[in-house]
């Protein structure tokens, strides 16, 4: 034992093999450290680190599927550049920072369905919660640390194809340095936009997951909620269009998928693709709706842990 060790021997030294029980007199950190530790553990857990190989399969496969298209575009960037340089060529089929999520966002939803239950259901299922709540960890601190980990994981998932698209677009141009200069302002809105999408998806899926200790029920709950909140406004709106209601299209603000997509397009200074939404709500309205939705979901999550018996 070095002199700097925080562990001291309480009993006279025994044999070299049995040091006996020693009291800990070192530093004890507070609640911020506890939250940080839980955050790190949760973030590792989302990716299956420290767990068996099977736990790593789902997150990495879904990440690969979501980013796949961007990497394909990156791999063929020189061919693409040649073909779009032809006169009259269309760039419509290509992935851009603005349209990537709206085309492939369903895979991000799958990621939430697969990994959000992994973050919160285990502790309920295996009754680990009493061990946290009898330590220096408050219930709301627990909920927020878990949420932050999933938000960060989702943010990285969303950002990976953006990085791939950026590299691809830069490589297409003949002058790399000039290309970087002209390209990054276009890519930049992805950062706050993806952060908002990550926050919205993570808070929603954790809030729903926290109500069941079983992964399967949580997953079904997330899918059911998202689909219903898409289908119900659509149904009411189609009635409203014939009946001439002016309020029915506003209901899409309650739909997580539509409002997050709308909010993301606001960061790129666009309005929603008319194919997916034909209402009077502007993308600015959707930003408000997305933030409100994330706030409500976070509140529900915290409330759920406050009330949970341990």
């Amino acid at each position, binding site marked *: 034992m070095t002199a700097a060790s925080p*562990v001291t021997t309480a009993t006279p030294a025994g044999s070299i093999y049995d040091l006996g*029980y020693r009291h800990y007199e070192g530093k004890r950190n507070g*609640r911020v450290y*506890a939250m940080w530790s839980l955050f790190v553990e949760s973030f590792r857990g989302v990716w299956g680190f*420290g767990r068996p190989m099977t736990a790593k399969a789902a997150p990495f496969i879904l990440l690969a599927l979501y980013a796949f298209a961007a990497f394909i575009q990156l791999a063929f960037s020189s061919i693409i550049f040649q073909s779009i340089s032809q006169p009259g060529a269309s760039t419509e089929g290509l992935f851009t920072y603005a349209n990537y999520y709206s085309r492939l966002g369903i895979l991000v939803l799958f990621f939430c369905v697969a990994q959000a239950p992994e973050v919160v259901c285990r502790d309920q299922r295996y009754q680990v919660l009493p*061990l946290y709540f009898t330590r*220096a960890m408050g219930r709301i601190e627990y909920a927020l640390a878990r949420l932050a980990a999933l938000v960060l994981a989702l943010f990285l998932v969303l950002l990976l194809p953006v990085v791939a698209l950026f590299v691809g677009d830069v490589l297409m141009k003949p002058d790399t340095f000039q290309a970087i200069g002209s390209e990054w302002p276009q890519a930049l809105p992805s950062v706050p936009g993806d952060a908002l999408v990550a926050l919205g998806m993570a808070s929603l899926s954790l809030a729903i997951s926290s109500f069941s200790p079983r992964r399967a029920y949580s997953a079904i709950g997330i899918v059911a909620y998202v689909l219903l909140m898409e289908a119900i406004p659509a149904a009411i709106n189609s009635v409203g269009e014939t009946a001439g209601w002016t309020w029915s299209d506003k209901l899409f603000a309650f739909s997580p998928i539509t409002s997050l997509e709308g909010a993301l397009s606001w960061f790129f200074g666009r309005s929603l693709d008319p194919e997916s939404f034909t209402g009077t709500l502007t993308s600015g309205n959707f930003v408000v709706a997305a933030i409100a939705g994330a706030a409500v979901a976070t509140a529900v999550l915290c409330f759920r842990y406050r009330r949970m018996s341990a």
Partner: protein
Amino acid sequence: MALIETASLSKYYGSVKALDGLDLHVEPGIIGLVGANGAGKSTLLKILLGLLTPTSGRASVLGMDSVTQTRAIRQVVGYMPEHDCLPPDVGATEFVTHMARISGLPRTAARERTAEVLRHVGLYEERYRQIGGYSTGMKQRVKLAQALVHDPKLLLLDEPTNGLDPTGRDEMLDLIKRTGTDFGITVVVASHLLGEIEQVCSFLLAIDAGRLLRAAPISTFTQRTPVLAVEVEEGADRLAAALTARGARTQQNGARVLIALDSEALYDSVRDVVADLALPLVRIQQERGRLEDLFRDAAPAGGIQ
């Protein structure tokens, strides 16, 4: 300073009274908390940990109030729940280290303490394997390790020998005893098995239906009682009748006759009566009190009416 103090502590679940006006004053040591299932043991522990709020009354641990100073209490208390509380797909080392960090131990100290505590509870090479593959005994050890890892001053153990075989039970009890006596950590063991309490504890709290039945050092329960038990192969009824005729207070219990030891002369009477009746004597012994007597409705400590 009292370790645990409660004043008219009550907890109702709807109309069910889990704790009903409990007054306790507990000094450090190894304390046994006994009671039948549903007597309120777990409820009391959870109130002390601040997991439950009492309906009325107050409780304090090491002078800190269980409602207002919950955080400070939790820093110095280790809790081992009665139910399973371990995720199956992580190793014991990883899990206990994580719990140490949640308790505020820095990374290196958490690792050191984990290695030490796991060795202390008797987990060696298997500590890197996933907990799901452990036996019940090993899981109980991990549960104890996570409660000890942050070096608490008070250890609350809820049914620590649940589901263990006799060997595992003895090992766990030995571990608890060493933790309490060698390391100066006060241990509260909640159990419904009196035999266990008798084996490890120095002080006993008996609660029944949310009320305090007895609180006293364990020795007072197991002292010799003023009762002589005479066991014969046959003719116990004749023995009892003859002794009653000589003025002794007796009670027949199968082949045994219990006699109140009112005077030294009783030994002679017993000898004479047994010899006169030519009874096949098996043994004569002074009765010891048993903890079970606490929960009997009949007279305490083997008394004879």
